[in-house]
């Protein structure tokens, strides 16, 4: 469902991705690993359409209605409506907007794009409360402003809750494990595992192997200096954990 060919991208005039290739099919979980500054976060932001990142060459095709379309020409909200979801490394605070309103606005804009009726507040609330169990969040979070005053772990869980509600076809998890203690990590990872289905795909961007103890990827890729320099199965992650990245260079 996702085909990336020879992708080059810059941020603030500096080239960060330098010819990246990646192919993701439905039902797969890919882990992108690599040292700091290798371009991992850039990749997820480029795919979601962050305006600060400029694609200078290469192509990204994404399957919409059984056709491979040029993803790069779509506005970020259109990408979201077509099933791409980015779980942020640093979720953004939205003061004054409560979580329930935010989730419902988001959910309804996506379902309406697909020609379905928007859900009313009452039904939506029931629906969300069910989803909240996946990440062990209590209902109080619905009345709180989005991410405002949330702890690091709560913010990450809130991202996974959004993912559960919006049911994306392609989920990009950007360093979702960073800053989590072991309990929060387990909750988040279990949440992700429950959302793993044969018709959706997940790309995990992570610095550490520890997340992969809970979410078993089908493929592991090593990103270095803006390119994927090695790909393998989950055993590659273990090797990286033991030996670091140096042996690859």
């Amino acid at each position, binding site marked *: 469902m996702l085909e990336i060919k020879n992708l080059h991208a810059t941020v603030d005039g500096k080239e960060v991705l330098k010819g990246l290739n990646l192919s993701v099919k439905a039902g797969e979980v890919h882990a992108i690993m690599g040292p700091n500054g290798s371009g991992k976060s850039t990749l997820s932001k480029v795919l979601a*359409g962050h305006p600060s990142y400029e694609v200078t060459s290469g192509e990204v095709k994404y399957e919409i209605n059984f056709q491979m379309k040029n993803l790069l020409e779509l506005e970020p*909200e259109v990408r979201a409506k077509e099933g791409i979801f980015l779980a942020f490394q640093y979720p*953004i605070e939205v003061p004054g907007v409560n979580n329930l309103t935010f989730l419902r606005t988001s959910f309804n804009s996506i379902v309406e794009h697909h020609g379905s009726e928007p859900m009313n507040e009452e039904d939506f609330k029931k629906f969300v409360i069910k989803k909240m169990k996946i990440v062990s969040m209590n209902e109080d979070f619905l009345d709180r402003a989005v991410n405002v005053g949330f702890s690091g772990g709560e913010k990450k869980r809130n991202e996974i809750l959004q993912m559960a509600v919006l049911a994306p076809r392609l989920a990009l998890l950007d360093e979702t494990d960073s800053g989590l203690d072991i309990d929060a990590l387990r909750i988040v990872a279990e949440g992700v595992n429950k959302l793993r289905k044969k018709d959706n795909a997940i790309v995990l961007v992570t610095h550490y192997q520890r997340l992969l103890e809970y979410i078993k990827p089908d493929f592991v890729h090593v990103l270095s200096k803006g390119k994927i320099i090695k790909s393998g199965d989950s055993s590659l992650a273990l090797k990286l954990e033991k030996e670091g990245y140096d042996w690859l260079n």
Partner: protein
Amino acid sequence: MDNKRNSLQQDYKYGFTTDIETESMPKGLNENVIGLISKKKNEPEWLLEYRLKAFRHWQKMICPQWAKVHYDPIDFQEISYYSAPKKKSEGPQSLQDLDPELLKTFEKLGISLNEQKRISGVAVDFVFDSVSLGTTHQEELDKAGVVFCSISEAVHKYPELVRKYFGTVVPFSDNYYAALNAAVFTDGSFCYIPKGVRCPVDLSTYFRINAKDTGQFERTLLVADEGSYVNYLEGCTAPQRDENQLHAAVVELIAHENAEIKYSTVQNWYTGDKEGRGGIYNFVTKRGKCVGKRSKISWTQVESGSSITWKYPSVILQGDESEGSFYSVALTHDRMQADTGTKMIHIGKNTKSTIISKGISTGHSSNTYRGLVKIMPGAENARNYSQCDSMLVGHDSGAHTFPSIEVKNKTAQIEHEASTSRISEDQIFYLQSRGLSMEQSISMLVNGFCKDVFKQLPLEFSVEAVKLIEMKLENSVG
């Protein structure tokens, strides 16, 4: 993209004019004109004298320059001080007897004068140019003993009440525009809530400027007697014209012991065009006096119109344990200039005031908060909390805050918080990545920013305010 262009063209949906026969005075201001206005209204001698005194005082005053707004000097001789739709017949009229063109105008503004279709639960007084066209819900109000009529009518029907309170909160010597208003005011609303009465419906005045080259100078006087309660709403619109028009109103509120007045405004006067041509100069003096113990006055305003706004709804906290509050959202776009805020004057013991001000500036506009919290020597244990937040959208707009605090009693507790923020690219991206468009994202961020003020508005008004802000933002952000 196309949608954005369309919405630009329908910028201001209230910009139409009503084609109607009017009776206007020629342009110019002098004692004769004031005499004519007074005669037209068949006013008692004291009121004419009051007007003339105010006029003579005004002539000695100079136009205030301290506000952070810029405009060419106003030629007060180029304004007509009276314009009214011609009456079909003499004698009292009911709202149903109005010219159909006028009725259509109010339908277009979304207000139905038709008694069957009228807004339920809200009694409305309509002020069109210089005159009040009438008030709805009279029967219901009569039953409760609530007086709600035009000020011209009140001068005749309730002379003692008017004379007792008129000009006691805002004397004509208060400031330049208050003096001008006192000299030439033509109409406005009067209301009196008797002791112990909780007003059965919300009261509302809708101001509409229609005639060209005319100024609107209305006067509102609202008295809440002991233990009474009233919720008052005010809305304003004007046609789109290339010339500036002056609106200089005075609003006085008086709250006796244990009375509570909530006064809300959604101000949507014409703002002028993208280059700043035309628009209303909104120079308004609004002040409330908490005369009695434990009385409460609260001002809530959504200021989204006018090319220049100069307005400081204030509260004098005279009664012990009285409370004043000011909740404000001011949105400026294109070339608009707003200088708005409040004064809280603590005189009584254990008085309390709250100020929440949210300014949003977009385009090339300038948005200023100016406030004064004053604790007088006798105001033991006075408390104030102020929060002034500014939000900048784009890179060409300006936000300014001028808070003053004067404390003459050391038992006072004052808290002041202020912030300036910009909507960040990351915030917009976050919302877009959840399927919201750029416009939806910005309006969600702005609504979140204004939430503490919007929740103070009555429900219908708050829905309207949110829509208004969204529409304005759609047009000014791109």
